[in-house]
C-alpha cells in the first residue's frame, strides 16, 4: 500500500497521478526523488516569497484529525492550510470519538462523509493512514502513524538539510537515537535514499537492530549503515539528526542509564563534527538527555528552529500538491 502511495505521490503534472484518484501522502517509502525535490522546491519558494498572496486553497476545508497528542505538528498543518486560504476543522486526542470506542477507520469515513477536501491524520497505530486511505474520495495526508512514517517531518528535515548542505547526493546523514520505534527515522531514511544520500543509523544495538538495514528494500541504490558507536563516526558525518528518545514508550525498556554517555550530543561531540555539519532535531527536545542545551541552542550549528519554519512551508507545498487541483 505504501508502494501504491508512491504512485499517487508522483509529480503533480503526471498523467498517471491525475487518473488515479486522490493524491494521498502516506509515506516516503517508494516516493521518487524527483517528486521529493519538486515538493522541496515549492516549499523553498514559499519560504522565500513570504505570505502567499493568492489563496490557492480558498474555499477548501481541511480536517485535522489528530487522534494522538500533538501540538506542533497539528499547529504547523493548521497554519500551512490557513496560509493557503483553506479553512481548517480540527479535533484533538481525547475529545474524539475514538476514545468512545469508534475505530480510526470509522472516524475517518465519518469525517470524509461530512464533505471535507482533505484529511490530515495522526494516529497511534502503524498503518492507520494506509488503511484509512483505501476507498477514500479525498486526499489523505499522513501526519504520523504509530511507528511507521511521518512523511511531512521527513520532508521538512530534507528541506533543512538541503538548504544547509546543497545537494544531498552522497552525503552521510547520521540519525541518532531510537531508530526502531521512530516514524521520523523511517521517513527520513526513505527520503534520504531517494535523494541519493547515505543514512547512517546510530544508536544502541537494542534500538538499531539488523532488520533496519533492509528498510530501503532491495531496490535501494545506496546502502544503509548501522552503527552502535557514535564517537567512531562523528568526523565522517555531513549532518546529524538527533531523535527524541521516547523514554515513556517501548524504548524505555531498551535503553540503559548510560545512554547519554554514549549517544548524547554534547559540546565535546559537537566539536568533533565537521564544522559545516548541521544539527537537526525533530523535537520536542529532551534537553540535556539526547542533546546538551548549549548545543541545541547554538544557532551556528543547530537548525532546530529553522526546522519548525520549514515545517510550515513543506506542509503548504504538500497540501497544495494534494488539494490544489481543480475543485
Amino acid at each position, binding site marked *: 500500500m505504501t508502494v501504491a502511495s508512491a504512485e499517487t505521490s508522483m509529480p503533480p503534472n503526471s498523467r498517471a497521478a491525475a487518473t488515479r484518484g486522490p493524491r494521498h501522502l502516506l509515506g516516503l517509502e517508494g516516493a521518487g526523488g524527483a517528486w521529493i525535490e519538486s515538493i522541496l522546491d515549492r516549499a523553498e519558494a514559499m519560504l522565500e516569497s513570504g505570505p502567499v498572496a493568492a489563496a490557492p486553497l480558498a474555499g477548501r476545508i481541511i480536517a485535522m484529525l489528530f487522534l494522538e497528542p500533538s501540538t506542533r505538528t497539528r499547529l504547523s498543518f493548521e497554519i500551512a492550510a490557513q496560509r493557503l486560504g483553506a479553512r481548517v476543522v480540527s479535533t484533538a486526542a481525547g475529545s474524539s470519538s475514538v476514545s468512545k470506542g469508534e475505530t480510526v477507520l470509522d472516524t475517518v469515513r465519518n469525517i470524509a462523509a461530512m464533505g471535507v477536501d482533505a484529511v490530515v491524520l495522526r494516529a497511534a497505530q502503524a498503518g492507520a493512514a494506509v488503511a484509512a486511505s483505501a476507498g477514500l474520495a479525498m486526499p489523505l495526508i499522513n501526519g504520523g502513524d504509530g*511507528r*511507521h512514517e511521518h512523511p511531512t517531518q521527513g520532508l521538512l528535515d530534507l528541506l533543512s538539510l538541503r538548504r544547509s548542505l546543497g545537494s544531498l547526493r552522497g552525503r552521510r546523514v547520521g540519525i541518532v537515537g531510537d531508530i526502531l520505534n521512530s516514524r521520523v527515522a523511517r521517513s527520513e531514511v526513505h527520503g534520504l535514499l531517494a535523494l541519493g544520500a547515505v543514512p547512517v543509523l546510530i544508536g544502541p544495538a537494542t534500538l538499531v537492530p539488523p532488520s533496519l538495514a*533492509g528498510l530501503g528494500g532491495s531496490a535501494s541504490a545506496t546502502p544503509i549503515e548501522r552503527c552502535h558507536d557514535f564517537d567512531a563516526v562523528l568526523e565522517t558525518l555531513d549532518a546529524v539528526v538527533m531523535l527524541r528518545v521516547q523514554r515513556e514508550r517501548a524504548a524505555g525498556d531498551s535503553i540503559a542509564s548510560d545512554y547519554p554517555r554514549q549517544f548524547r550530543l554534547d559540546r565535546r561531540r559537537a566539536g568533533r563534527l565537521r564544522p559545516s555539519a548541521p544539527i537537526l532535531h525533530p523535537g520536542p527536545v529532551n534537553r540535556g538527555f539526547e542533546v546538551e542545551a548549549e548545543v541545541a541552542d547554538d544557532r551556528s550549528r543547530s537548525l532546530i528552529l529553522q526546522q519548525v519554519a520549514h515545517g510550515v512551508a513543506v506542509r503548504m507545498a504538500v497540501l497544495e500538491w494534494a488539494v490544489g487541483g481543480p475543485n
Partner: protein
Amino acid sequence: MTDLLLRGGRVIDPASHLDATADVLVSRGRVVSIETAPLPPSAIGDARVLEAEGCLVVPGLIDGHVHLREPGNERAETIATGTAAAVAGGFTTVCCMPNTTPALDTAALVHFIRLRAQETGRCRVFPIAAATEARAGERLSPMHAMAAAGAVGFSDDGSVVAEAALMRRVLATCASIGLPFLQHCQELTLTEGASMHEGEVSARLGLIGWPREAEELIVERDLRLNRAIGARYHAQHLSAAGSVEALREARRRGEPVTGEVSPHHLLLTDAACAGYDTHAKMNPPLREESDRRALIEAVAEGVVTILGTDHAPHTAESKEVDFAAASFGVVGLEGAVPLYAEALVESGAIDWPRLVAMMTLEPARLHGIDRLGLGRLAEGGPADITVIDPQRRWVIDPQRFETLGRNSPFAGRTVIGKPVLTIVDGEIRFDELACRNAPVAPSAT
C-alpha cells in the same frame, strides 16, 4: 440408510499401505468391502453407485486443530457452521480447541461440546480440553475428569503454558492419563505488543516484531522438561526453522513428540503483511522464506508428521481495524486440501499417500481415536470417507465458505484439488460428485 458404492477411484489407506484402483462398498455406516476386482452385481445390490474414477478415495480427513468458537463467540463460528465447513473441506473429524468463553475447563463443558456436536454437528467433533483452569496458566484443570468425559487431548491453545513448574505438572498428568499435550509455543516476554514476524518487513511497516526465538525457546524448554516425563508432547502450528530442528533431535532420540504445520506457514511469508493486510496476521506469525522451506523439508523428512489447519474464524470487525489491533488467525478448513497439495505434493516434498497419512492416520494416533477405527479405511471399520478430485481447478472465494469466517489470505487464489464427497459414518454430508452421477437403476440379480 442407502448403501453406497464408490466405484473406480484410487483408494489410499496409509494404515494398510493400500494404494490401488478399487471399489469401496459402504453399508450401515461401515465399510463392507474394498475390492480391487470388479464387484459382481449381487454384491452391489441396490447400493447407490458413485463413480469415483480419477478421484482419490481416502479415509475421512481429520483436522486436529480447529476453533469452533462455541460457546461464547457464536458470531464468529458455531459447531454447526464450523463442522459444515469441515465436511465441505473433506474433513470427517475435527478436534476443537478449548479457547472458548468460558474456556473448556470442566467435564460439564466437555459434555456440552459433545452434545452440541451430536445435535448440530455435521462431522465428528472431539474436544481438546484446557490444561489449566480458565487457560490462565496458574492451576491444573480437572484433567482426569475431562478425559473421562471425552476429551482427547489437553492444551491452553491461544495461550502458552508459560511457567516451567506448571508445565511439568501438566506433562506429568498427561502422561499418567495417556493423552497428549498440545503446546501453543510462545515465550510471552518476547512478544509483547508484537503483531508480525520480526524482520525487515516489520521494520519497514513499523510494527513490533515477534522473533522466531519466541517459539523456539518454548519448544526447546518443553522437550527438555518432557525428557524425564515421556508424555506425548505435540507442538502446534510450527512456524520457525529452529523449532523443527529441536523436534528433529528429540525424535531422533526416540521421544514421543510430534509437530504440526498449517497451510499458511507452508505457503506464505511475512511479505504477505505488506500493506498491513490483517488477513495475513496470525499467531504464530508468517515468517521468512528460509523458515517456510525448513517446514516443508521437515515434512519431507518425517520430522513434522501432522497437518492441522488452525482454523480460526473471526468476525469482520475484528479484522477491519489497524494491524496491531486486529485479531490473529485465518480460516483453514475449506481450502486445506489443495493448499497442502500445492505446498507438499506439487512441490515434490511428499506424495499423496503420505499427505493423506498426515491428515488421517497420524492425527488419529495422536489423539487415540485410531482405536475407534478413525483415520483408516478398513473393511468393518467406520465409513468415514473423503473423495478428492486431485485435478479440479477452482478459485478460493471466502464469500462462498460455509464457515462464518471470511478471514483468509488466500482469497482469489487459484488452487488445484478439491474434496468432492465427504461421507461421515456412512452418510453423505457433502457432495459435489452428485452432478456427475445419476442414480443407477437396480440391476437384475
